[in-house]
């Protein structure tokens, strides 16, 4: 992201996740204002604003001191003046657009307090113009110094010291007066600082959206749907080797959605992209998709990857169950969550695993929890929606595909699937990946053995 100021960076990092539709909409409206300008003739003005944003200084500390009624030093006053001037210039640039990008308070009064000679340059000191007394004393000091230089024996240093200390006193008084005059503007300054930081962030968001082809999502009341959703990071990596990322369409309701499919068919990426889009929306960004209607949630619960840890005393299964437990509890409490689980219960024996998957799915369905579960298990609860990744749909000549080009032959799109059995592509994929063919041969033989038959019969019996 192209943030121009440290201030902007901090604003972005401090931004909370938004849960209210109106909050999200507000932020997206602002981003949209800039986004629409970027495509038009006035795009150059945005670059000018960015240049100004680069000059913004973080004066939080000085404002705090001002609010506490403390007297600021020359350097702090310089920084406040410099900020007020930049802020004013940004305001003027904004005026050239039809709509206001963001409300920034007019700090002209602050500028005039710190610019008694009306120079409008970003430099500061306690100007002579502030006080006639000060101007007078300074002049006297100068004359006295010149006289001392011309005639060192005639004058003593005492006069000079007295004058200098008087000058310092007057300066201090003037400084205190300046700070008193600025005091009422402290909250406006704070507001301006905040708004300018916000402007930096929304500009960066808009530019990000434009460069990565993100779009503005609509907030939905019922379910979530994406058209041509993609994972921006993976897409960029693929582009480096001149490959394309196949964007996919997906619709989710407030219920369970299973995703099955061969290995390497992109199921985990789908989950990660769903999580990414949800977070992006709720932090006020545009999303990586051609169009999107997204339901807002209070939490996103994800279980992808292995949290096995000898340190915590948890095995793969245990750590997964802990996560699933959190999800189930949230579901039972009827919390508004998005649940994403990769290969639920793969960490234990298939019979119990499948039972767990169905149990969890039942609970999610009962509580209308927006959830996506990927799995390899067959015999899933038929009441649940099932999507399948197409995968290696066609027939290929042996040796045509290998582990380096397998991604080019994959069809990553999702189709609704009613079949009770999941695709059995594992051995086929393993073969393509170049795994030692002994494994493939022996495994294939095992599938045809009598025990294999028995298991199959059981499968079909219990899930009709």
């Amino acid at each position, binding site marked *: 992201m192209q943030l121009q100021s440290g201030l902007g960076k901090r604003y972005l990092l401090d931004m909370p996740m938004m849960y209210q539709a109106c909050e999200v909409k507000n932020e997206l409206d602002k981003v949209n204002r800039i986004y629409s300008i970027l495509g038009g003739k006035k795009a150059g003005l945005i670059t000018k604003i960015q240049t100004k944003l680069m000059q913004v*200084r973080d004066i939080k500390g000085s404002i705090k001191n001002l609010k506490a009624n403390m007297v600021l*030093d*020359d*350097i702090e*006053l*310089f*920084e406040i003046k410099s900020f007020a001037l930049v802020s004013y210039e940004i305001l003027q640039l904004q005026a050239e657009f039809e709509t206001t990008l963001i409300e920034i308070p007019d700090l002209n009064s602050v500028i005039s307090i710190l610019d008694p000679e009306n120079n409008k340059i970003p*430099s*500061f*000191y*306690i100007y002579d113009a502030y006080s006639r007394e000060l101007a007078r004393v*300074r002049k006297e*000091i*100068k004359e006295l*110094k010149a006289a001392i230089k011309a005639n060192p024996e005639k004058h003593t240093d005492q006069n000079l010291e007295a004058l*200098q200390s008087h*000058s*310092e006193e007057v*300066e201090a008084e003037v400084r205190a007066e300046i700070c008193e005059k600025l005091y009422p503007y402290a909250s406006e300054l704070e507001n301006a600082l905040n708004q300018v930081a916000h402007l930096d962030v929304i500009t960066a968001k808009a530019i990000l959206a434009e460069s990565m082809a993100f779009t503005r999502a609509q907030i939905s009341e019922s379910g979530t749907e994406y058209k041509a959703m993609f994972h921006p990071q993976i897409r960029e990596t693929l582009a480096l080797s001149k490959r394309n990322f196949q964007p996919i369409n997906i619709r989710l309701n407030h219920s369970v959605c299973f995703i099955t499919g061969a290995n390497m068919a992109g199921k985990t990426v789908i989950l990660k992209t769903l999580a990414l889009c949800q977070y992006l929306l709720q932090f006020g960004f545009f999303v990586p998709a051609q169009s999107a209607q997204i339901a807002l949630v209070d939490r996103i619960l994800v279980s992808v990857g292995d949290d096995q840890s000898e340190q915590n005393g948890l095995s793969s299964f245990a750590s997964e169950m802990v996560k699933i437990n959190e999800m189930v509890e949230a579901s039972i409490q009827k919390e508004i969550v998005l649940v994403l689980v990769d290969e639920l219960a793969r960490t234990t024996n298939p019979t119990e695993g499948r039972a767990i998957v169905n149990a969890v799915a039942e609970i999610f369905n009962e509580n209308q929890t927006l959830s996506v579960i990927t799995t390899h298990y067959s015999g899933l609860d038929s009441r649940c929606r099932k999507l399948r990744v197409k995968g290696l749909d066609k027939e290929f000549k042996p040796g045509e595909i290998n582990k380096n080009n397998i991604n080019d032959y994959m069809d990553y799109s999702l189709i609704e699937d009613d079949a009770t059995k999941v695709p059995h592509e594992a051995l086929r994929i393993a073969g393509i990946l170049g795994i030692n063919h002994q494994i493939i041969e022996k495994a294939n033989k095992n599938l045809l053995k009598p025990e294999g038959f028995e298991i199959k019969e059981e499968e079909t019996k219990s899930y009709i």
Partner: protein
Amino acid sequence: MPFIKEIEKYKSLSIVGLEKNTGKTECLNYVLSRLSDSTKQIALTSIGVDGENTDVVTQTHKPEIEVYEGMIFVTSELHYQKKQLVAEVLDVSTQSTSLGRLVTAKAKSSDKVMISGPASNVAIKDLISQMRNFNVDITLVDGALSRKSLGSPAVTDAMILATGAALSANIPQLVYKTNYTYDLISLKAVDDESKERLLPIQKGIWAINDEGNLIDLEIESVLLIEKAKDRLFKQGNRIFVNGAITDKFLNFLRVQKHIKEIEIIVRDFTRIFASPETYYAFIKRGGSIKVLQKTKLIAVCINPVSPDGYCLNSDELKQAMEDKLKLPVYDVRKLAN
């Protein structure tokens, strides 16, 4: 004094003392007072801290630097707060030094200020180029040759050396030592192309082979040369050393058979920490040293008084120095008038 005219030709000038109490600050004050009359915009800073009221080590009175109305100066926040003169803040740096951020200000009256500028070469170079934004014609840098400083005054175009009795209470010795520094400053620079390629290299020892390629010898410094002696000349006889050159290193090189073909390249003359004897012996045997950054020495200032109170004969010293260096030499105490 004629050397002021000479100064005005350069964009940056450093005033460097060979030893503490050699009159560097008096020299700087003199230069500033003379430049205050000129129409040029002057900027002033220092490498690291300077301007202590009394020299902590020797307890001799150290005057602070006198800044004139209209001059731009760059000092740390800490010292800016303590100033007595009236000054207009022009800029505050975003980076911090150990004494706070650097404040660039324009003096609105004349008075003494403590100047503490950036401490690294990169920072000083940046500062000098930033001064262009304020229409500065010449930047003066109060320099230091101490080993503790990361910044080398050789980043400026020109230099004035301050030397004196503090370095040695014996005139021939003093001339000899000063002449040594002068010879180092006069070392030839490498060609522009090599300079461009070597400048960004921040550490280690590299060789330049016959085809002109740069090869990292993977020797961290000359202090670790013991273990790597055999590797040193495998790739050629032109060696670039990033860090310091020591007596030990030069002595090692001196006894090599192919000494006449050896060329050592250093960043600038301040990286040579060898004694004059070792250095001259190395040169006599046919070795050569070149620098990346060369600065021009335009004058030498002498302070005949040592911190112990010993006073050398000013005229004698001045004459001996001028004869040896063939450069204008000025007595700082006489300059003040």
